[in-house]
């Protein structure tokens, strides 16, 4: 049955060496799979044409003196000089960072907490999930107004509590330039943490139930189980949520417009609003695109090392 084979294992390599002369065995490391290429073609087109195209176009316009409509002259870095002399833009960048850190952290913590608690086989899971998620469904144009009312010292909570007898109660986050940003964070968290919850819940539902058993026998407290075992395990979901939140931070616009219009003063201005205002309201496409370019570069500066480490260099899935 196995006549081809000699008993001496020493002979095998010799024989095979002859069969595959050096060099011919070396091949492309990966197989080309037409269906994969076919499946990824739409993405390639979109990336190439839309995303890269629009980014290049944006950068190009930022070196022009375009006002309401694009023109294609060249003014060098004038727009950037102007941009970085602009107090509002600098405040916007700073706000984005502060808001981003607080908002992402709060959403992740609250979302994770809610996901974990909902995962404890609670009653009315579906109802609670929907309650936590519903803010995401409503347009911020009006829910922002509800928040604004609620936070307004003359209309909302402060007045209600004072009328109830606590005269010294003070809750006027929106009215104070120092705290208005926190009010935005609050409303942002209200809107987005439900989404984080469902994303993480999707991750939690994929965790091997035996792990929970092992942890319970090991005497690992539930919080520790979730923190040390589940959290790393749903890492990809957390990354997903963080990226989504980060996108929301960078694009943050509706929330600000609905609640503070950037005020009081310029206390809650954000870069996206700066871009929007200059692109449309103030008819200064050049400056607007310069601001957008700065946003893009900032994002890339933060993102590139991470993207590279994660997706760029290796062929396969992250370990």
């Amino acid at each position, binding site marked *: 049955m196995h006549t081809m084979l000699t008993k001496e294992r020493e002979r095998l390599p010799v024989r095979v060496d002859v069969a595959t002369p050096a060099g011919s065995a070396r091949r492309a490391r990966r197989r080309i799979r037409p269906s994969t290429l076919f499946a990824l073609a739409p993405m390639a087109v979109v990336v190439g044409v839309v995303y890269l195209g629009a980014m290049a176009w944006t950068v190009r316009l930022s070196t022009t003196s375009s006002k*309401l*409509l694009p023109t294609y002259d060249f003014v060098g870095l004038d727009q950037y000089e102007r941009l970085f002399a602009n107090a509002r833009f600098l405040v916007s960048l700073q706000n984005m960072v502060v808001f981003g850190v607080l908002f992402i952290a709060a959403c992740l913590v609250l979302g994770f907490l809610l996901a974990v608690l909902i995962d404890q086989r609670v009653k009315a899971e579906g109802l609670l999930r929907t309650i936590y998620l519903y803010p995401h469904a409503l347009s911020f144009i009006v829910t922002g107004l509800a928040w604004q009312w609620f936070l307004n010292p003359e209309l909302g909570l402060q007045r209600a509590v004072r009328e109830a007898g606590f005269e010294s109660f003070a809750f006027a986050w929106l009215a104070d330039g120092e705290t208005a940003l926190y009010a935005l964070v609050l409303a942002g968290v209200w809107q987005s943490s439900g989404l984080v919850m469902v994303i993480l819940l999707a991750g939690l539902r994929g965790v091997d139930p035996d792990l929970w058993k092992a942890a319970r026998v090991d005497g690992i407290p539930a919080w520790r189980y979730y923190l040390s075992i589940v959290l790393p395990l749903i890492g990809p979901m957390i990354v997903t949520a963080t990226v989504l939140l980060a996108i929301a931070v960078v694009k943050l616009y509706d929330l600000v417009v609905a609640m503070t219009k950037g*005020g009081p*003063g310029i206390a809650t201005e954000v870069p996206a609003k700066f871009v929007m205002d200059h692109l449309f309201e103030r008819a200064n496409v050049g400056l607007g695109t310069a601001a957008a370019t700065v946003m893009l570069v900032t994002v890339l500066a933060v993102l590139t090392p991470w993207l590279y480490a994660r997706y760029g260099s290796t062929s396969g899935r992250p370990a």
Partner: protein
Amino acid sequence: QEAEVIHWWTSGGESAALQEFVSRFEAAGGTWVDTAIAGGTNARTAGINRIVGGDAPTAMQFNTGRQFEEVAAGGLLNDIEAVASRGGWRDLIPASFVDAISYDGEIYAVPVNIHGQNWMFYNNAVLEEAGVAPPQTWEDVLAAAEKIEAAGKIPFAQGGEPWQERTLFNAVLAGHGGPELYDRLYAQNDVAALDTEEFRAVADVFGRLRAIVDEGSPGRSWNETTNLVVTGRAAMQLMGDWAKGEFLAAGQTPGEEYGCALVGANEALIIGGDVFVFPATDDEAQRAAQEMLAEVMFSPEAQIAFNNVKGSIPVRSDVDVSGMDACAQRGAEVMSDPAKQVPQVNLVASSDLVGAVDDVITQYWNDPSMDADAFVARFREAMEIAG
């Protein structure tokens, strides 16, 4: 002829006013295709995108001012010089408006209304209760504040959005500083105007106003702010004449429950308004529809009817305003004296400058620790960069 019109008049009162144009246009044999998009920015963005995308509407709304200048320069608009010359528009409308609707000497837009931007609305009952007379000057306003506050009311209701703050500042500038200073600053872009005594005084008054508004101001819309006056929680608000709509909706009449005043010795009225422009087209039928629209909108009957509902003043000086409310009549009266007319900033300054100045005003207004000097310095910077 079918005419598609993009505009941002979506609220009940606004569309009722618009209806006056529509019915007249349709009576003249046209078909009005309405594209209403709330929010000036949204509507303009959509309109410009459609022009760029080769799917232009027949007409689209702009604010009176220099917003569409560039579109015209790009050859994307049809002029309506023929209609305007035929109708003798240049003689009928305020001079600042003529400039604002012209590009390269030709008229490109049809102005439809004049909005007074600096009306002081006050609640008569509240003022009476506090024992103060309706203010005549900005110093009056500041002086009345103490008494009103003592009566447990908000002296001065102010909304917390940059444009509202700008409106207030410009009202102080025109009222306290005078039309001349206003003109030097915005139309002539004269940075030296910042060094004048008058401007210092304006900055000072505006700064002092910060102290008499309520805590709930930041972020508040103008409607809610007006409601404070309507319901008697606040004594005064400075707003454009569109605020009359809120009083009207609450069943109040000018001169009775509330009053309106132009604060400042010189009674300057800041005027702005809306125009319609006509995107370029080769289609003869569209071209005809555009001219017909221009004609209809500018017609005296349409002007009266439209502005009556809209709460604004007709652009034509040759129409009878006796049927309009007290505030409007007062406005029309002021309008008859060109010296008292002050064009809204958008008519004279670039959007860019307006925006840059907005940023400075809102910072000053909202930062109690910022003094007038700092304000002037920032103002200068803004003018130097954006002007």
